[in-house]
């Protein structure tokens, strides 16, 4: 699956365009890092890609491997604040990802099919959260919350996860742990679009990289083919 932003323009209420003719594609099975300074439009870019904001011009389209447009692409979104529900258990947070596959009336009463619960437990086990399944999300560490957010996206069946400033608030060791996990999931076919301002993460963890400056993509390509100094210069 590929999510394409084609000539996307966006502005909030004021007349200044936050995104100006952005062309970029995020693919499943690939980690794309979007670099940019604060205020460059990274968060807006991900929100437009996620369908939360409607572009003023241009379009966002998801296509399958043969180029056919998808009407209901499976996309996950992890905002800057991670977006887990602090008062719910880890399992409940993750099961929300299975809501649209479960019988609605039962799911609203908090009852999910047995196979979905088992799947959620497997996903949590895979992400190293097997021992905190019944903890409330607010009691978790920052790294654990990130993993809960990933688990929820996986449970949702997301082929592409859009993660905003994904590791910016984590300490260096936890950042490595979380990004190693991202790499593991990439090898299973899940794609990630991660916004960050940390250039040093690119060579080790990104397949592709794009630099956003004042709402325009000013540099884009395979991560291995662009020197970190060029990325810094483009920021």
């Amino acid at each position, binding site marked *: 699956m590929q999510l394409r932003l084609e000539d996307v323009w966006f502005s909030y209420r004021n007349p200044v365009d936050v995104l100006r003719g952005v062309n970029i594609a995020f693919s499943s099975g690939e980690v794309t890092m979007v670099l940019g300074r604060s205020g460059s439009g990274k968060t807006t870019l991900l*929100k437009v890609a*996620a*369908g*939360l904001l409607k572009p003023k011009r241009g379009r966002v389209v998801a296509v399958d491997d043969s180029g056919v447009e998808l009407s*209901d692409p499976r*996309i*996950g*979104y*992890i*905002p*800057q*604040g*991670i*977006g*887990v*529900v*602090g*008062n*719910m258990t880890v399992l*409940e947070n993750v099961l*929300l*990802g299975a*809501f*649209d596959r479960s019988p*609605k009336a039962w*799911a*609203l009463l908090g009852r999910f099919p047995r196979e979905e619960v088992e799947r959620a437990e497997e996903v949590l086990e895979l992400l190293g959260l097997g021992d905190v399944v019944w903890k409330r999300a*607010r009691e978790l560490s920052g790294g654990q919350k990130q993993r809960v*957010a990933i688990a*929820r996206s996986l449970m*949702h069946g997301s082929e592409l996860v*859009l993660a905003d400033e994904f590791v910016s608030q984590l300490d260096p060791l936890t950042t490595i742990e979380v990004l190693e996990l991202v790499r593991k999931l990439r090898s299973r076919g899940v794609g990630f679009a991660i916004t960050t301002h940390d250039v040093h993460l690119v060579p080790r963890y990104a397949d592709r990289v794009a630099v956003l400056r004042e709402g325009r993509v000013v540099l884009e390509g395979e991560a291995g083919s662009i020197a970190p100094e060029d990325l810094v210069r483009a920021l």
Partner: protein
Amino acid sequence: MRARTLPRPPQRPPFGLLTQLLLALITLALLFRFGAFDPSVISRLGNLPAFVAEMLPPDPRPMPTLVLSMLETVMIAFAGTTIAVAFSVPLALLSTRSLFGPQVTVPLRFLLSAIRTVPAIIWALIFVVTVGFGPLAGVLGTAMYSTGYLSKLLYEAFDAVDREVLEVARVMRVGKLAEMRYVVIPEAANYILSQSLFMFEYNVRASAILGLVGAGGIGFYILSYIQDLDYRSLSTALLVLLAFVLGIDFVSSRVRRKFLPD
């Protein structure tokens, strides 16, 4: 050196010295207007010790009746609050701007505001006329007023729920009901509990005067003692009320400590 225009500082609440002086002056003017500085009023202040003396010592004889009627007051407040919570949560959800558009939220907020405008005692009077004298009128009156009040407190809390969490649910396209059930309600759960407890405590105090219009509880006796100038029994009733209110405050603070994080 080039002169530079500094940006305006953010607006602060207007609590400067001048504002405080102005507020004090307005209040004094109002007190003057209402006759607080009339010499005859000041001379009548001397009645207070005599009134207090007539209330002492409290008469213990009506104690059993008063305790029972206070229990009825507490039951009225409990039933009224529970009904109000049951109605307030869905009404507040429908009034939440992050969930619904103005075509739904504006009329509902207006309706809730209209309900709040009528005091609990008038609602109780309306229900005394509708269902007759007794505690049922008190329950319905309390429920009605509390629904208007609690709904407002809750929709403000629901509006303050972290938008990012809602956005995650929206990207997964789980639908409005799931957004309410799995995002808004859990995120605001602590607030729902603390405001419901507050409403209950408030209603215990408010229900105590519902008896004035024949809606059951200790208010009926308070009114009778005032009319009969039986101030010693009145002070007993007030002590019973005080004991219950303190007891309920104690219990709810324990509940808060158990269920709500610091």
